[in-house]
């Protein structure tokens, strides 16, 4: 190689270090030909990995602020319980076995209702997006019905379904159904025509069209719908447990509130948040897996 006539600092010269110059200021005598690079410096080597720091740091910070606020009694301790009190309450409901019982009840209901609701929602949303007839027949009803709270139909549902588990599962399934159906409908509607054309050219049967083309093409949006539907299912589960149940996380929280045990309510909040978060992470991993093709 010819001697470097560029008068650049050594680390800016060729070789393996090539990728390092980005984001560095070049010497005044050798102004960069580019306008200033606009990207985050992608430095190699001893760089700090901010991701874990930030993603663990931010909840931690929140916790510290919470503890501080309660320690200084900025709010009445009966209402804003401190993290330590929550931990104590947590220990209490664990040792009495109450939490485990409520949680397993809730999770069973959630699993049933959510699975049924989300999968039916996916199918219905796809049918709505793919068939003009289905869309014309059910579109308006769907759009109106998805805005109506299930709360309003409780007398009818009780009459039809009774008040046992079926009732709760149906309510949760209904809640999970709509966000997924909408997400599937809306994002499949947005799939470029060219994809349909290729599929039609090879006369791909509808299940291939759906599983190999439409779903991959809309993974992020449909999964976002599934994630929302999980949130809603959680929410409605708790609400349903308020209406008819003796057990479940929602019931635990509601009783906690009735009994002015806000520490127990907070335990419920945290458990619900953590479990929801974990389930949500699961979907994110699923999404990352489904979107390998973007980064592979």
């Amino acid at each position, binding site marked *: 190689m010819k001697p470097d006539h560029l008068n650049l600092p050594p680390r800016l010269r060729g070789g393996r270090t090539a990728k390092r110059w980005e984001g560095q200021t070049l010497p005044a005598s050798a102004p960069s030909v580019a306008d200033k690079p606009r990207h985050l410096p992608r430095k190699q080597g001893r760089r700090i990995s901010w991701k874990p720091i930030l993603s663990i740091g931010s909840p931690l910070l929140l916790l510290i602020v919470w503890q501080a606020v309660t320690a200084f009694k900025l*709010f*009445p*301790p*009966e*209402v804003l319980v401190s993290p330590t009190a929550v931990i104590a309450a947590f220990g209490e409901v664990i040792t009495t076995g109450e939490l485990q019982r409520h949680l397993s009840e809730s999770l069973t209901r959630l699993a049933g209702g959510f699975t049924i609701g989300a999968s039916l929602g996916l199918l219905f949303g796809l049918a709505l997006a793919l068939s003009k007839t289905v869309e014309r027949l059910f579109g308006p009803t769907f759009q109106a019905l998805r805005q109506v709270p299930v709360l309003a139909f*409780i*007398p009818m549902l*009780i*009459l039809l379904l*009774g*008040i046992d588990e079926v009732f709760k599962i149906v309510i949760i399934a209904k809640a999970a159904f709509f966000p997924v159906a909408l997400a599937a409908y809306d994002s499949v509607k947005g799939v470029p025509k060219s994809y349909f054309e290729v599929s039609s050219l090879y006369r791909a049967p509808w299940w291939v069209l759906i599983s190999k083309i439409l779903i991959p093409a809309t993974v992020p949006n449909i999964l976002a719908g599934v994630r929302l539907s999980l949130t809603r299912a959680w929410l409605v589960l708790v609400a349903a447990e*308020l*209406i*008819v*149940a*003796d057990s479940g996380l929602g*019931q635990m929280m*509601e*009783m906690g*509130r*009735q*009994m*002015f*045990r*806000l520490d127990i309510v907070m335990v419920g909040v945290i458990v619900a948040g953590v479990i929801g978060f974990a389930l949500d992470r699961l979907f994110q991993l699923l999404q990352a897996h489904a979107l390998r093709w973007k980064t592979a």
Partner: protein
Amino acid sequence: GEKPASTPAAKLPAAVTIAAISYTYQGKPTFNGLSQVVINQGWLEGELKKNGVALNWLPVPTSVGGPLINEGFAAKRIDFAGYGDFPALIAKSGGVDIRAITSSGQGNNAYLIVRKGLEAKSIEDLKGKSLAIHRGRPWELTLAKLLDSKGLKLSDFKIYNLNPQAAYSALAAGKVDAVFTLSEAILQEDKGAGTIIWSTKSNPEWKMRTGLFARTEFTTQNPELTQTVVNAYIKAAHWASQPENRAAFLELASRGNNPTSVLERDYANEGGDWNDHFSPIIDQGFVAHFDDVSKYTFENKLVQKEVATRNFIDPTFVNKGIDELGLKGFWKETPVTGPVQ
């Protein structure tokens, strides 16, 4: 609501906030019981205004009334609240310093209604059957007393924890055999959903009691204001107690969940005079009831700390108010003087 000033007496708070169970009537909140009478009379607002103090009403829906009021007391967002015995006790036990300063009369009836077609004459007949109740609500205590008296336990039934709306549907649909609830049971009976087989009319001592509760800090810092509020409630009780106002009062009350016809029957066959329904006096019965409730809730681990009623009931304001308003002897009961022993 505004927080009251921390320095006593000299500085009055900008506003007094009273929370009470309310309903929505023609798109606007209508309060339950005497609070609406207080509002209609307008006397309290005028009195407070003279002192430059505003009056705020906080309407709370019945289904979440207890928790909302308790949290409001804890956050010092409300100063007074009219609500039930059980939630107030829970707050007190949970460290919120409040006390009962008037009674709202003899209390509310609870009913046991069984579904159509079920041959049950008494609670004993329901053994092994399904029974719906909304757990944690004040009338659960009444049920507990009823069961105790018959040597029964909750586990003798298939208990469904249902909120009232759901419970009535389930009853009508025959999905539960019985519901234990408040006066709406009469309405359900009228609609043909079931038959009432028991009520507190046969055991008035088990009725759920309500009263006006106040934040202790507020009452000690603003005794005059507190007295004004209490007087307003005594005046309202006085108005409601007069037989010629019966119809008007029932009309007000019918803006809630129950039509007048139901209320009439709820108030019927109670023995005693119409005016005794609204006695504000904190009498032996009232105190005994709270003693009882306090013991029961603690023994059944519904609350963590036992509440000493003597710190919880303060009849001084109501006694003074009755004197001031010249209403001594208007209501029959004998007032308790001084803290309960």
